[in-house]
């Protein structure tokens, strides 16, 4: 036992150091996070959830949804787009000729093919995206040239990445602020189903959510998601049918004289799902909301 004390001290120092590095330092750096402000507005982000939605997080957790669903949108890059929104006094043809006359500019050399392609088969429909580039200098050069001939254009920040572009799961990457009111955070690590960070925007109908939870195949034919029937009650229809009764397709309905109504857990879960939105630009994850282009 002579070395016992030194083994204890070594273990204590090693564990203490990793506790400092992995727990203490991050909580000093991020633990004090507060609500932030939505870009170009006075709104705060994120919004505190309603009571039902807060309880819904616990239902989500207890049902093991995080085993198949993530709540984290990844972003691999960012690009800026120049979109023409008004031609002023110009006609599409002479505007096209003007744009081609810019191809000799050294900054645009790399982009000539892409710009030419964006003008292919174009008859003046607006808005039209002319140029997409990660290089802001190129973009502002183009915007200035358009400005100088009186053509109206808008430059938009467009986050890149498969989660955002190909899968359409969100508008921007998830950042720490998004999870401020999640206790515990349901990041998830496996994507058997789609990411749910933004499901409240994608599927804002509570009844759809209930139908999907009760019988996933009733709304998505090929769904492999298990059904969560225990969150619902099948009961005889009363004098007046319940307004919240699930609008199920005939194949999935429980039979004549019966209706399926959500239990409180299903209500809370749906409230939580509808509260999942990551659709506003923040300082740490800027983008230009689509509504800006008229």
């Amino acid at each position: 036992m002579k070395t016992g004390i030194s083994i204890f001290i070594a273990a204590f120092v090693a564990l203490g150091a990793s506790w400092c590095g992995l727990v203490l330092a991050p909580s000093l750096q991020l633990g004090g996070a507060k609500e932030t402000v939505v870009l170009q507005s006075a709104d705060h982000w994120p919004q505190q959830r309603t009571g039902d939605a807060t309880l819904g997080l616990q239902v989500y957790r207890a049902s093991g949804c995080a085993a198949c669903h993530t709540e984290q949108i990844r972003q691999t890059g960012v690009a800026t787009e120049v979109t023409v929104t008004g031609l002023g006094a110009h006609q599409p043809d002479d505007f096209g000729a003007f744009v081609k006359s810019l191809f000799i500019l050294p900054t645009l050399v790399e982009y000539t093919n892409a710009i030419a392609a964006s003008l292919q088969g174009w008859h003046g429909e607006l808005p039209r995206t002319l140029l997409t580039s990660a290089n802001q200098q190129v973009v502002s050069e183009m915007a200035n040239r358009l400005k100088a001939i009186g053509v109206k254009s808008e430059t938009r920040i467009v986050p890149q990445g498969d989660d955002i572009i190909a899968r359409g799961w969100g508008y921007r990457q998830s950042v720490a602020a998004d999870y401020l009111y999640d206790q515990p955070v349901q990041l998830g690590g496996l994507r058997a189903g789609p990411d749910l960070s933004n499901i409240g925007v994608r599927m804002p109908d509570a009844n759809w959510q209930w139908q999907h939870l009760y019988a996933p195949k009733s709304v998505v034919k090929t769904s492999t998601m298990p059904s969560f029937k225990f969150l619902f009650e099948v009961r005889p229809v009363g004098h007046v049918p319940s307004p919240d009764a699930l609008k199920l397709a005939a194949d999935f309905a429980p039979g004549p004289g019966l209706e399926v109504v959500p239990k409180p857990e299903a209500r809370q879960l749906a409230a939580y799902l509808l509260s999942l939105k990551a659709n506003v630009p923040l300082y740490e994850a800027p983008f230009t909301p689509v509504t800006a282009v008229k």
Partner: protein
Amino acid sequence: MSDENPSCPTPSGGEPTSTRSAAPMWIIVTTLVLLFLGGYYFDQHSGWFNPKVYAPYPNAEALGAYQPMSGDAAALARGKTVYESVCGICHGADGLGKPGQAPALAASELVITKGFNRLAHIPLAGLNGPIKVCGKDWSMAMAAMGAALPDDDLAAVLTYIRGAWGNKAGPVTGDDIKKIRAEIGKAPQVMTGDMMMKLPE
């Protein structure tokens, strides 16, 4: 080697042996102090961690470049871009004018006026004939270079030239320009310096 004769004399001092002499104390102490200071410095800067910066943005500066500007900063930045692409060709990016081409805007008594009615008339209607700028006589012509610009952009340009290069005159808004443009009407008449001076400042 086993047949070595043990009675042979060995070199004085005997065989070298290894001892347990430690590294000098001062090296250990200096190393520890340096490690501590390095760690402390790294920690003070949080390892250059910034809770607002996420990949793919490499640092706060790159992220800042993607922030939409608002209010005054946006108008000033807009004004600079429009100035450099529309007016700068003649008046120079530094606002000092170009000999034989256009007079200076920096410190020009026609720019840093209290009101901006006269000033706004220059790019909207054009200016022709003798004027005096910073004590120098000019007699050239400027077409209505600003007439084609949207109200907000022209306001941004005027705000910019009234605030850049050491000029310290107040801002101009898009609504002001709209009013002045309406007064001038659809077919502006190119002003002479004298006509301009008769306008209210």
